[in-house]
């Protein structure tokens, strides 16, 4: 499923890119994501995500690989993980494009191609799409807040 989200951050294009390019910080904005470690800078990272979908707990080890990046405009990462206990496999092909709106304003266009496999996806199929949409929305919001925090701390 494809989900789009747009957020605006009070940063110049270059500053916004500086944040986004740090994939460990970017990955950290995924709701419930913790312990992001760099394996190879600019290429490969790992982390852990723990989230609730109502009564369900989802816990996964995440693998984050950078597929493409074009400074300062676009970065594409593949985030995948598996919750063996629940039999859930998740794959997200995430692209963030940066569009300069002004000297201190950049829009981040987030495009996510998400695949969720497993029983929870089949049984909950009529709410999975909505939940994924919520997660991407929250990701966007987290990203905006984190960027704003950067600006504030400066």
């Amino acid at each position, binding site marked *: 499923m494809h989900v789009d989200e747009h957020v605006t951050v009070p940063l110049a294009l270059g500053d916004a890119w500086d944040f986004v390019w740090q994939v460990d910080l970017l990955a950290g904005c995924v709701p419930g994501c913790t312990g992001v470690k760099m394996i190879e800078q600019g290429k490969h990272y790992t982390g852990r995500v723990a989230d609730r979908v109502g009564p369900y707990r989802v816990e996964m080890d995440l693998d984050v690989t950078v597929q493409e990046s074009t400074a300062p405009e676009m970065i594409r990462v593949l985030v995948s993980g598996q919750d063996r206990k629940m039999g859930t*496999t998740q794959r997200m092909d995430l692209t963030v494009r940066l569009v300069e709106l002004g000297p201190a304003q950049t829009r981040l266009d987030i495009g996510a191609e998400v*695949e969720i*496999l497993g029983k929870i996806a*089949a049984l909950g*199929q009529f709410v999975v799409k909505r939940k994924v949409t919520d997660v991407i929305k929250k990701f966007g919001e987290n990203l905006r807040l984190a960027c704003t925090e950067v600006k504030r701390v400066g």
Partner: protein
Amino acid sequence: MARATEDAASPRDDAPRVDSWEKVTGTAAYVEDLPDPPGTVYAVPLESPYAHARIVSIDSSRARALPGVLGVLDRNNLHEFNLRLDALDPLDPDLLATDKVRFQGDLMAVVVANDLRTARHAVSLIDVDYEILPPLFTAEASLAPDAPILHDHLGTNAIFEDSFAWGDVDEGFAQADEIYEDVISSPTVFHHPMEPIGTGVVHWTDDGIEIWAPSNTPMRDAAGVARVFGIRPERVRLRVPTVGGGFGAKKVTREMIGALALSRRLRRPIKLVATAEQSFAVAVRHAIEFRSRTGVTRDGRIVALDVDLLVDCGAYFTGGRTATHNACIGAWGCYKLPNFRVRAQTAFTNKTPATPHRGTGKTQTVFSVECIIDRVAHRLGIDPVELRNRNVLRPGDRVADVWTVHGEVTPVNIPPLDVDIPTLMQQAVDMLGPTAPANGSSGGRVARGRGVALSLRHGSKGETESQAAAELATDGTVTISHNAADLGQGIYNMIGIVASRTLGVSQSQVRVEKPDTSNMLAFAGASAQRTTVEMGNAVHAACTNLKRQLIDLAAETRGGDPNDWRLEEGKLWRGSESFELAELVGAGGGVTLRATGADEETYPHDKAFGLFEHWAPGVAAAEVEVDLDTGEVRPLQYTVLADAGTVLHYNSARGQLEGGAVMGFGLALFEEMRYEEGQLQNADAFQYRLPLLRDMPPTMSTAIMESGEGPGPFGARGIAQTSIPCVAPAVANAIHAAIGAPISSTPITPEKVLRALGSLESQE
């Protein structure tokens, strides 16, 4: 032609079916109800959760180490079991997935343990590392130039081609006043018998293999098992208990064969208990896309029909040849076409392997053809019933004189039509009562419409003989043995009726056994509407032979000439003297008389149609109400007609027609297997939408013509598949009439109706 000549009893005087009481009271013993043989242990399979993936590694050591686990079969130890895997059709699934999994549910391993709970837990301990690959869920996607290849060694996902033609379509189009193009599709659906698929008991004993399992083709399944294990077919005994529905899906599964391999080592009976969800991974119906060009004259004669079929057979080719070929030989509907051509391409996808499904290849093509006829009618401004009258085949018509089958020009060896479709069609329409007044309960805008659909199926003989045995015991009961599984059609009852009428005994004196392959009585299996005809004839022959033996015995022991004797009302008569059967048989020193018989009918062989038994027409008319604001379709009335030749048991025949129609409503309005977002989304009864009683039209009328011309006992024909293909097109045509717009695919959802109305466009 050998055929029974006794007068047909009134079809409405029927006794209840022999299996009704036990089914209604819950005493019927399905395979899961059978008492466990002593020492029974349990097998549970590990099935792939992914539609397409490379198996990087599989490690069953934790499973093996669990207390209570007796054995695990996976790709790592498969070679130890000496299975003749080359005996499996190379285009069908291997026993286990070894390098790749190609559909969700593909078998990975089998665990055997002392109890079911331990076995299930052990399965969860098998560690598999998969490399997920992108799945292909449509034939179109799998034939695209850059599509991943599902069976690497084949180098392509295109697995089979077929074609069928007569006349010259290009010539025909040149003569046409109008040429129309249409694309109509039918999705993958699941047979969904009420009893899950894959439950059974298997046991490797010192004498051979014993299997208790539901199967629509017991002799073929037993022979297949024998080949895999490299033993003689006589050493495999498959017994079929009461079956809870089949529709083409019931068979000995790969999981059962895996369990048998383990049973060979353990020498224990092993029980498998399938879940409803696992059943979705055993058998489904082929999805077919039907693209056509229809050339017509302005006065409504079809002068050319050119069809391209794209057939989706799932991950393996099981049943693909039959489905594709059946679709080809049915793609012309029941019309007299001067020029016709169909070309079919079958392709693999990452879905459950497709198999025969009630009306194999027909439910999809009848839907398409009958919708096209109505589209043509609407476009030309001709009434759809009238358009059919102008083109339909009539009694005595030949379909064609010569045709080209898969590139080979051959004479047409099927008989001219001996059924009267136009009359059936008129009757179907007439049987629709007047439209009930709209009661305004929904408070919204509605439109009503009526539609018809015609289906011309045929019965065909399988690749083996059909045999039965009749035995008269010393107490006077007659026992019939055979291998024709009753999947709910009323076969055992039919056999009892044929036996009782042939022998002149009451049906209560006849015992019909369930299939047991140790009797070695051949039968190609419940399929192709052949069972009543072929098994009925075999039972009739066996009973006729038994009768002869009995009369000879009577003449021998009581005197007189065999011609003086007759069998009537359950007794033997000579003049006015009568004897109980038991007297005669007991008198012969405890002799039991046994006779066998086979279906001795000869059927013409045709290159396209195979061994052709009889025409089997089906006709339906529907009236529906469409809610124009929500798109919901409410069936109001439905009529079902067929020609049974002779009805042997009225309620059974009617049940077949109405049951087929109910199944057809499922296909028309609700059913599809939803492969989306990388996986099968609805492998459960909760989300795989089956037809409910409340979805049925409040009025369903059935009429069964008896033209008496069938090749079966007492003039019977098969009718099992005549009603199911007509529902979707009759409903679609009724909707077309109601809203003025055609429907292009099943299931006909409310959203599709709203889109056809153009109601959703402005929001796009």
